[in-house]
């Protein structure tokens, strides 16, 4: 039995040693760099590492170097909570960035709130900041805002009867619910409401149902991953001659590649400035930020920049800005400074926080994009 005790103690000591390094300002992050949500967490992790490196090379914040403690929770909410506890209790970080998914974020919130450490989430759901929790903030726009942006565009085009086909994953299901709750404000009626499993390889059956719906004028597809690409391809194969809207969840070049430029022609979706850095007008406020981030990220990783990495970029930017303004790296001071963020230009939009609004973005953060000839264009 002696061996057991020694092994247990040995392991615990190894744990202690692993976290003994010291730094001036310690920032913690737990993202889903591996596992089913790695398409979110991987660019987020790379972005954070890159930005910290850049910042330290430029002299840090207020003359102090920054150390990033980064963990990979694999998309598991239980692990995310453990890592959040580790960041707060053991690494003693002054702020946490992370929670790539809504599930991981929700399980981190109570840890951050209990420890009174500011936490900036990278996940979409509106529940994260509604009701407002003192120490919890987030950078991505909510799925409700994406719905509003899409319905606004549909309204402009005079559509009143639309169909929906949604994924049953967290993202698709949440956005489906949010869209249905706001659709009435735009005088639009949902005449067909279908779902698919994110692992399905064919959505022709659901699309055929939608096609047959009475008086239908357009179709919206809330979803992420490969599902929307398959929907887009099936849509073309069935020769459905109605405008197709995708969500911000697939706002990346990968989507056009997967769906095929031919099938994706004419698809509209709400995206961020980051996606269209090259075609943004010169006088656009976000142009310098997105161009710089895009250039740095692509040079560093050799992979195209995406919306999700942009969320992490903005979270770090907000934190850096807050610590600079607070002139202190005390969690409470950072929290107050984050809440006072005003007119901060990020890749996702321009952030202005307040005690009632811990997201700080409005609908203008979204650009309505249309795919033409395999390229993104701005609809105006």
């Amino acid at each position: 039995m002696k061996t057991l005790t020694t092994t247990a103690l040995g392991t615990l000591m190894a744990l202690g040693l692993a976290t003994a390094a010291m730094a001036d300002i310690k920032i913690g992050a737990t993202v889903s760099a591996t596992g089913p949500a790695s398409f979110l967490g991987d660019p987020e992790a790379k972005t954070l590492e890159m930005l910290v490196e850049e910042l330290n090379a430029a002299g840090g914040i207020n003359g102090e170097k920054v150390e990033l403690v980064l963990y990979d929770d694999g998309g598991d909410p239980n692990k995310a909570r453990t890592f959040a506890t580790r960041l707060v209790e053991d690494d003693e970080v002054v702020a946490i960035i992370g929670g790539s998914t809504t599930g991981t974020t929700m399980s981190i919130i109570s840890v951050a709130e209990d420890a009174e450490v500011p936490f900036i989430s990278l996940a979409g759901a509106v529940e994260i900041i509604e009701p407002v929790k003192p120490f919890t903030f987030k950078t991505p726009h909510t799925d409700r805002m994406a719905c509003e942006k899409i319905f606004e565009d549909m309204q402009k085009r005079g559509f009143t009867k639309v169909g929906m086909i949604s994924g049953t994953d967290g993202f698709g299901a949440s956005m489906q619910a949010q869209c249905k709750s706001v659709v009435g404000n735009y005088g639009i009626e949902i005449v067909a409401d279908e779902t698919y499993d994110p692992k399905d390889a064919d959505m022709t059956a659901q699309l055929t149902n939608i096609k047959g719906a009475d008086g239908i004028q357009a179709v919206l597809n809330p979803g992420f991953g490969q599902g929307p690409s398959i929907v887009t391809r099936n849509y073309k194969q069935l020769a459905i001659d109605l405008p197709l809207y995708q969500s911000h969840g697939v706002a990346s070049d990968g989507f056009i590649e997967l769906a095929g430029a031919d099938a994706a022609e004419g698809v509209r979706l709400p995206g961020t400035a980051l996606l269209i850095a090259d075609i943004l007008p010169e006088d656009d406020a976000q142009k310098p930020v997105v161009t710089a981030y895009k250039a740095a990220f692509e040079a560093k990783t050799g992979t195209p920049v995406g919306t999700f990495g942009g969320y992490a970029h903005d979270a770090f930017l907000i934190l850096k800005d807050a610590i600079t303004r607070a002139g202190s790296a005390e969690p409470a001071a950072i929290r107050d400074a984050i809440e006072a963020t005003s007119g901060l230009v990020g890749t996702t939009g321009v952030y202005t926080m307040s005690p009632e609004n811990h997201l700080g973005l409005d609908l203008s953060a979204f650009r309505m994009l249309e795919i033409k000839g395999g390229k993104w264009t701005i609809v105006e």
Partner: protein
Amino acid sequence: MKLTPKTATLLVLAALIALTPLFFPSGYYYRVGALIFVNGLSVLGIVILTGYAGQVSLGHAGFAGIGAYACALAPVHLGLHPALAIVLGAVISAIMAWLVGRPILRLKGYYLGVASLGFGILVSMVLSNERWLTKGPDGIEVPDLGLRDLLKDMGLKLANGEFWYFFSGICLLIGAWLVLNLYNSPTGRALRALHGSEIAARTVGVDVAKLKLQAFVISAVYASVAGSLLALMNKFVTPDVAGFMHSIEMVTMAVLGGAGSVLGAIFGAGILTLLPQVLTVFAEYEQLMLGAVMMLVMIFMRDGLLPSVLRKIRGRGE
């Protein structure tokens, strides 16, 4: 006084639970400890099912899911106290295990593995898709157990992590005590006979189907209670708790540590809970190292880590 193996096991376990906090440098270790105990509890169920009765289940996370969501839903919809919700979850799990196990366990062979696999996937699909009830894949909040506030009123102030460390530690001790009692009971002997040879057990009059069903139901209750504790500790739960990977994790913990031994299984739970935390140093190689450790143990220590090591030590002593 001569120590029976049962008392010795319980004493070692109690001492480990009580004394390791003396070496904890921060509150985070209480969290890891509590996770080990909760995982240990669900693995104890696997000890009964796999270690004693020789049956394999690939869907035990389904029961953990039932237990976890009972604690999330019953207090809100039925007005039940979270502590009673644990019991409700355990009862539902037992009934489900009985319904699934009864027809399947009459058959010989590996049918339970397949049936339980299907059951586990079914539970996780229901939890993901029935949004009106479970709030879907993004998860649902779980009310507070309330025991910590009760202790505070009685003058015992514990941090959240500390409370859960000791509370789950005590649950694990009770769970281990019950398993060890079962081991020495006539039922336990019959179960082990069944594991040794089903035909021989049947010949001496053991009701094989009934015993296997009992073992399956008991282990389902263990998984369910562990799921409940996990949900209450995290105050948040997602359908991942019922996922296939979680089922595999439970079996792996038991087999790695030694499925036939209570301490071994808990040790396995400890190793597999600790390793990902220790291996964060290796970042991308974490999965690789985890796989390598498991393969090496399975090749060189087929009875599981702890029993093999103990045997080696004893062998040297003689």
